[in-house]
């Protein structure tokens, strides 16, 4: 399994500001994923981040709004830019880990953002 740490765990942000979420993994992984979970909703994939290349964004998400960095195999950041109340969500970092039972996705503790 993998241990994934996210910072910050919670934050209250002012409208129009930007916030960067950090994700640290205790082992090297090829792919890291960023999800958003709006209140009472399921998870939506924002983008996939591979080390050494630009992130691949899902439909409805753009780099200008959610820039992602992936400087090495254990770390990634997601920035939520020019925030509005609609960006109030849980943002989850995850990694795919291959074990004896096959692959699965492990999640960080999540970053709870409230935009006021």
């Amino acid at each position: 399994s993998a241990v994934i740490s996210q910072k910050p765990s919670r934050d209250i942000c002012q409208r129009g500001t930007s916030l960067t979420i950090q994700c640290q993994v205790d082992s090297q992984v090829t792919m890291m994923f960023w999800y958003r979970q709006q209140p009472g909703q399921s998870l939506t994939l924002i983008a996939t981040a591979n080390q050494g290349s630009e992130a691949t964004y899902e439909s409805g998400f753009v780099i200008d709004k959610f820039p992602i960095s992936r400087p090495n195999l254990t770390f990634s950041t997601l920035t939520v830019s020019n925030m509005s109340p609609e960006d109030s969500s849980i943002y989850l970092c995850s990694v795919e880990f291959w074990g004896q039972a096959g692959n699965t996705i492990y999640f960080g503790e999540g970053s709870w953002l409230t935009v006021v």
Partner: protein
Amino acid sequence: ELKVEQNPLFLSMQEGKNYTIYCNYSTTSDRLYWYRQDPGKSLESLFVLLSNGAVKQEGRLMASLDTKARLSTLHITAAVHDLSATYFCAVDTNTGNQFYFGTGTSLTVIP
């Protein structure tokens, strides 16, 4: 468009009862995952189902996968209050490393 649907969305059941949560998906996939999410918490991996006919059990929960029907079930046996949580299924598409999550089932077990 890929769809992963769960049924029911909300489930209230009494302790000691049995019930099944269903997960239907619209794409070809041999891999399906079940997660649990407690309020205010992240997601915890419960089961990884990697082939047609796969069945896994852990305590009062049992998950199965029918890839031909594109259906997975999560069966709860003799429910206890500690099982109250939201349960998500997720599908890993055969064409890429993307996980698509179901709508979620909010389970409340009443004493």
